[in-house]
């Protein structure tokens, strides 16, 4: 896979190589599908490659991650609009090792896509609300409210799951 090239191309290729594990994971948590996650990452990689010359070294990963998150949420939204919400187990990328992980991620996928993206960025990626707002192009206050609503639903669903209700 990847390599060579010159100048910015090398930086870009190296960045993609370095983050090739992390980016699909975020996309998977948002889309719930390995195939869709890989498509989102691929589309993002291609889109960023086209504008890479305008991206600074420092901003490279954030730029790429933002592209991946947006592609993932767009992909999910379009599927939800067409009624194609998959009724299938979460397809793994190798890091959902426990059954409870898998069940938990399935619960996450029952959330609306924006709530899902917010909590994935906040709790999985550890981003602050301001950065999340930027990535999702929303204001900070909805980030907080979406996160609160999502976590409340997850807690409720988790209790139900654990108590077998």
């Amino acid at each position, binding site marked *: *896979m*990847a390599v060579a*090239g010159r100048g910015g191309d090398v930086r870009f290729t190296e960045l993609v190589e370095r983050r090739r594990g992390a980016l699909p994971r975020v996309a998977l948590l948002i889309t719930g599908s390995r195939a869709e996650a890989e498509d989102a990452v691929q589309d993002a990689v291609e889109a960023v*490659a086209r504008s890479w010359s305008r991206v600074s070294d420092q901003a490279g990963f954030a730029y790429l991650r933002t592209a991946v998150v947006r592609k993932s949420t767009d992909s999910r939204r379009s599927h939800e609009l067409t009624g*194609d919400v998959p009724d299938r187990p979460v397809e793994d990328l190798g890091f959902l090792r426990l*059954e409870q992980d898998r069940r938990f991620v399935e619960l996450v996928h029952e959330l609306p896509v924006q709530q899902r993206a917010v909590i994935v960025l906040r*709790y999985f990626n550890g981003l602050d609300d301001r950065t999340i707002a930027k990535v999702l192009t929303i204001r900070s206050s909805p980030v907080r409210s979406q996160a609160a609503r999502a976590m409340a639903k997850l807690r409720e669903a988790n209790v139900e799951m654990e108590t077998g209700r």
Partner: protein
Amino acid sequence: MSPEEMFRGLRDDARWMDLPPSAREPSGRKADRPLRLVRSWRAAIVTIAVGALIVAGSLALIARTTTPPATTPNQPVVTATQHPTTSPSTQGAASLTPQTTGCGATIPSADFTGLDRGSARLANGTGEADLRIANYAAAGARSTRVSARVFGGSSTTTERGARWAGALHIALVRGTTVVAVATSGSTSGTVGYDQTSLLSATLASRDCSTGAPLADGAYSIVALGPAVTVAGFVLHPVDTRRPVHISDGVLVGEISTAPTGPWHGTGVPTCGSPVNESTVRVFATTTANQLATEGLEVRVTGFETHANRQGRSFVATVTNTGDRTAHPVEDPQSATAVTSDGRIVSAPDSGGAEHDPDRSTLTIKPEKSTRLVADAPITGFDLSADGTVSGPTLAPGPHFAYVDFGTTTSAGTPIVMTITYTGHNDERAIVNQ
């Protein structure tokens, strides 16, 4: 366990996976990953309590064994298991059209006739409508995932604007017998406006009739269009076929019947010039495999499987390792632009359009939607535009393509469009709205 704790666990696992293998296991213990049975301190306490019970039970058993009891006690058995890392592949075949796509069904080879580059045209009811499935690709060695790009168009205005929707049925065929089937998610579009949707489905690697692993050999991927509803009538399934090969039980990719076609992209030398000294970045409408067969070394940034799906762009570094030259430019005057109702609005040799052979440009003045017709299969588009163009919808077809400029294109904004035909390359149409 709280959601925060679950996310923390997932994040820890992800970080662990990102470590180089040597850093993962400082103690030298051979393990793909530390055995983790519990995630939180609460679960740990429960585990400890269970362990204590086991120990107590064992001690009690030992004591009873030492002094033989009158009856044999029930020994508690506690097992801790780690769940498998992958789940069995699933496939859905419930909604397949039985007479043509069910497991074990026979698909007459006649169904494949008249197809060109993965597309088919249907004559249907009162009008002629297309549901074309183009750009097949078998995924790489990792899976038997198959993708197809679907779009609905119409050569008449009868059904324009009607919505269509449906799923793609994909069958793996040996000879004429279906041995594996799968159904993609559904998608929808508007007839004549050619939204394209990438649909995918994963085929099982076992024969659906016998359960045996698929034998090595040549197969066909048949994508069957759904029974979609368009303007109140139903389009029949569209069949088309792509040959694939299975080796060691794995679908290894498409043995393409499509020509190893033209390619274009940023930095690619102009048509006719040799690609011999530099590396170029390619956003190609052909596949990495196809480029490689042309004597080009292709290094892909991203997923190689995606780079081998026809119709997908990918980022790659391409180096010419032989004496391969770019496809020569053929006479682009064979391209003609017609409006959606079939009227020719410009043709290079009729004086309705300007053709500049030096710049390989073709200037056409289409209406809001137009259809480009060529004498060779149209395999791809690229587009650049100044101003506030929201991007037309482009969809390649066998010998024609629809171009829909949407509703937000600013009048007078020039659009430079690169249309790639089989046997032609880097033809550019400057479209002035």
